[in-house]
């Protein structure tokens, strides 16, 4: 066996290896703590990112839908739910000339089927490229005004290849572009012109077992941009009183509702993280104090052999640092793996805009979790370090005699 220099680090590793059960248990405690820190941080960051991305791009101040369909529209936008509903088409012209209305664009929603007539069950969204101001803000890869008949743009979660075909109601449609992640229901939608969408309704009546509505009315929702966004609630009241067959979704109110939910989730996450931090500090502090107390004789002998008190303090800190770094790495790796694999389940379950941050942001978050775990470890061993630093060598050696 070769000679090995007995550095503080080497001695700490040897000590930890000798007490392998205690070391493993403490690593598990730190791993659980960093797992929760990282998961909580990633979750709140993803929700904030999704909300900001959505509110920044929607463009419309109010959305007019048939009476009783407001929730369906919100579910389509947020939860990727597939819905079919129709509004009286004449409304588009009447609303666009109303005072305070800057722009109005119709959209047509058709829920495809989970049947042989359709490649995948998704939400088909027809829009008017000439008046559209919402869908085009998500389309970076294609000029939406150039979208032709029979051509579609698919959301990021729709399994379709660029340049390939997708089938709906027995009709082949060409995929000309794919959207990037939007963090909302658009990810599972297929976009086409109003003309193509209306053709799909006809095709659904001929080919499908379950036709997509009667096809008499040709729009589902009207997205309206007002000249003054602060008047949205007033405009909504006016529209509902004038057209009682409609419901109006005000974007500001919808975003406020999302913000409230987001705050509740954040509060819960911070609460759990705070509670777990206290528990982790207490567990680590108790275990380290007990362990340092049991090892008094060992420390006393090391002092008698010539080790300095600084060396002993360094030894204790090195031990906790090794435990914390190993635990934090395990926790962060497990959390990243689980959060990445279950990202879709989280997004669908929460029903809120959810967009995972970039790898850079995730690495920063991982580094913060690691630093916090190390900080937790250091403050929990402070008491033991101070006690060992102050104890008398002779008393330490003879305490158990």
């Amino acid at each position, binding site marked *: 066996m070769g000679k090995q220099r007995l550095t503080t680090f080497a001695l700490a590793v040897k000590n930890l290896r000798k007490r392998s059960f205690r070391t493993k248990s403490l690593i598990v405690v730190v791993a659980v703590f960093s797992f929760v820190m990282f998961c909580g941080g990633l979750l709140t960051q993803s929700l904030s990112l999704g909300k900001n991305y959505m509110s920044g791009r929607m463009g419309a101040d109010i959305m007019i839908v048939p009476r009783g369909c407001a929730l369906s529209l919100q579910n389509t936008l947020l939860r*990727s739910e597939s819905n079919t509903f129709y509004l009286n088409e004449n409304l588009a012209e009447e609303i666009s000339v109303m005072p305070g209305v800057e722009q109005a664009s119709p959209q047509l929603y058709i829920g495809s*089927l*989970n*049947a*042989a*007539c359709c*490649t*995948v*069950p*998704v939400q088909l969204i027809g829009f008017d490229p000439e008046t559209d101001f919402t869908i085009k803000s998500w389309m970076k890869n294609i000029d939406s005004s150039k979208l032709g008949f029979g051509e579609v743009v698919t959301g990021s*979660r*729709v*399994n379709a290849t660029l340049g390939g075909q997708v089938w709906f109601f*027995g009709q082949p449609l060409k995929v000309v572009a794919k959207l990037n992640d939007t963090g909302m229901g658009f*990810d*599972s939608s297929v976009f086409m012109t109003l003309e193509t969408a209306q053709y799909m309704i006809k095709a659904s009546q001929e*080919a499908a*077992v379950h036709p997509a509505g009667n096809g008499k009315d040709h729009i589902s929702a009207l997205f309206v941009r007002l000249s003054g966004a602060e008047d949205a609630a007033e405009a909504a009241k006016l529209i509902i009183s004038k057209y009682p067959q409609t419901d109006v979704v005000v974007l500001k109110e919808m975003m406020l509702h999302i913000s409230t939910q987001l705050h509740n989730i954040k509060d819960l996450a911070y609460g759990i993280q705070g509670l777990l931090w206290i528990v982790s500090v207490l567990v680590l502090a108790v275990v380290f104090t007990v362990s340092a107390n049991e090892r008094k004789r060992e420390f006393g002998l090391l002092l008698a052999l010539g080790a300095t008190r600084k060396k002993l303090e360094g030894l204790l800190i090195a031990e906790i640092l090794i435990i914390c770094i190993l635990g934090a790495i395990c926790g962060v790796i497990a959390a990243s*793996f*689980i959060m990445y*694999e*279950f990202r*879709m*389940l989280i997004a*669908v379950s929460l029903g809120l805009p959810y967009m995972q941050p970039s790898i850079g942001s995730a690495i920063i978050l991982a580094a913060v979790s690691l630093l916090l775990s190390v900080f937790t470890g250091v403050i929990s061993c402070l008491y033991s370090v101070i006690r060992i630093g102050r104890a008398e060598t002779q008393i330490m050696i003879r305490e158990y005699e």
Partner: protein
Amino acid sequence: MKNKSITGMIIIVLGVLVALIPKVIFPVCTNRIELMNGKTLFMKCHWTAMTELMIGTLIVFNGILLIVFKKHETRIALSIMLFLLGLAALLIPTAVIGMCETATMACRVGTEPALIVVSVITMALGIGNIYFQSNCIKSEQIWKERSVIK
């Protein structure tokens, strides 16, 4: 002795999870594909679920054998088998049979990630156990050599 039982128990739990995830914990899509002529077909994920049930049962059996057999060489062989079963449990939903096409369907949202996580843990446990058993054999050999020298 205690370690052997604990490893076996963990493997049994993992096997039960592999078998139960697609049917009970995160069930695969229950709807059937409806053809234009009115006939219905099972979706791809149904067959994945059936295969995972079989693999899960084999993992449970592997765990029982790991508790029963004491020889390190046998346990290494069983651990290699465990790693391969974990690999099969991973490849069935991701490459061999697969799941439904749409990313938001139940099988893609819940079943697939859960199976990936459990199968990766199973594989890691298999590799860890191979390493642990090999170390045990090495240390036993060192002890034997030392006792012969004495």
